[in-house]
């Protein structure tokens, strides 16, 4: 079922993230995604996530499409000027990709190619506008193209970012640029998310909350320090420290977070660290399987 249709249906959405390989062998990524069979409404495929060089997501989305998955391809403005964005949008459409998550992208100095020229020719709002133009059969310069795209575009938001005023300015522009859904960065603090959801309620498009099950206290501290926008509360970290089975405790914490935010979002997006081995179990704990 197309993701746009799932969004329309009002169903509680479950998506999960996979990353393309850092090399030519795609089999590991496909096997990893295979664990999601029957569990998710769509699989997101990242685009040089955190500015770490990887294979183009177009290829992995296409392969996952062949396996029967609905995919959401991430597209950043960091690595492509408007010409390249348009080429890749056409390529993605031709490869059967129907959902794009438009984002500015992390800055190159955060990744493994720090001397890269950051492009940022368009911002995420302008990319959403570009997708809408191509959906209507036009290019950036308003010239007709041969066959329009049919892409359901989403946008990202950071529920932790404060003050709200400037964030809402951006989110409202994303909505008026025809974003059909918002996916958030990882939520570890349900109260902060709910505060965000309250002020963002009026935007009128579904909000899908990002979820990362933490694996260990050390891993949580590392993320707090290194990953932009991540804020894991001390309480969760001390629970991880004393837990007998930290991975299980991380899933419990994630399941509790999901329960606490569930009425304030339209779905969740699972971004595990190191593969989807536990994703089924987590979704079962949340009653989201079957």
């Amino acid at each position, binding site marked *: 079922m197309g993701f746009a249709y799932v969004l329309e249906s009002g169903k509680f959405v479950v998506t999960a993230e996979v990353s393309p390989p850092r090399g030519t062998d795609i089999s590991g990524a496909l096997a990893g995604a295979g664990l999601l069979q029957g569990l998710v409404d769509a699989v997101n495929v990242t685009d040089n996530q955190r500015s770490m060089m990887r294979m183009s997501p177009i290829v992995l989305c296409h392969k996952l499409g062949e396996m029967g998955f609905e995919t959401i391809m991430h597209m950043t403005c*960091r690595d492509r000027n*408007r010409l390249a964005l348009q080429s890749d949008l056409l390529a993605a459409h031709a490869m059967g990709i129907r959902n794009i998550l438009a984002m*500015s*992208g*992390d*800055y190159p*100095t*955060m990744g493994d190619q720090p001397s890269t020229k*950051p492009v*940022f*020719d*368009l*911002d*995420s*709002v*302008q990319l959403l*506008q570009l997708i809408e133009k191509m959906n209507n059969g036009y290019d950036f310069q308003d010239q007709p193209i041969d066959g329009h795209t049919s892409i359901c575009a989403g946008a*990202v*938001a*950071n529920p*932790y*970012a*404060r*003050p709200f*005023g*400037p*964030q809402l*300015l*951006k989110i409202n*522009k994303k909505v*008026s*640029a025809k974003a059909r859904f918002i996916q958030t*960065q990882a939520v570890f603090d349900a109260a902060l998310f709910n505060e965000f959801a309250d002020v963002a309620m009026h935007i009128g498009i579904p909000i899908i909350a990002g979820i990362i099950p933490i694996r260990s206290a050390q891993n949580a501290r590392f993320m707090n320090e290194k990953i*932009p*926008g991540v804020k894991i509360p001390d309480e969760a970290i001390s629970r991880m420290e004393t837990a007998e089975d930290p991975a299980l405790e991380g899933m419990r914490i994630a399941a509790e977070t999901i329960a606490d935010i569930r009425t304030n979002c339209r779905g969740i997006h699972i971004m595990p660290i190191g593969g989807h081995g536990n994703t089924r179990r987590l979704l079962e704990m949340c009653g989201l399987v079957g």
Partner: protein
Amino acid sequence: MLITRPKPIEEILSMLEMFPETSICVVGCGICARKIQTGGEAQVSMMTARLQQRGLDVMDGKMVRHACSTESWDTMVEENPALDKAGILLVMSCGAGVSLLGRLSGKPTLPALDTTSLGSALKDEVLENFCVMCGECGVGLYGGLCPKSGCPKSQVNGPCGGSIDGDCEIWGRECIWIKIYERLESMGMLHLLDGIRPPVNHDRRL
């Protein structure tokens, strides 16, 4: 004002190695580089001494009034006759100054500084990244705070998600978008941020 930063000495030395051995004159610029202390008298004599210590053939350093603007080479030489005798000019100014001196002198002319942005000097404080010379100035619509230069991602339609409690995730400074928002709010002009801004028209820079 052009913002410059010193190049690593190793980079300067390896540039110098590419040219035949001849007398080097370190040239400072009396305007921006002097003001922000990257190419004033003190930096010129320090650079001269460092090159001398390495056994290079270095003349006394010189200051020009402005490296990027003069009547002619003759005018510069009139003020600093030694410039004409130098074999290589090692210039402590922005790239524009290096280019002009190279063009006018016809001598090998090398930069000792990196030019990083257009900024300001306010008393002793150097303010970087005021402008990236986009060719289509819209700074007035942002309360005088340019997001194309003040934001590493050149966001013109609002902050990215990395703006946490007012700080930018990338360079540890205040997120320019928080300042833009606050300034326009205090001016009662937040409506200037309504509507989606188009991307820069790069055609205008040609």
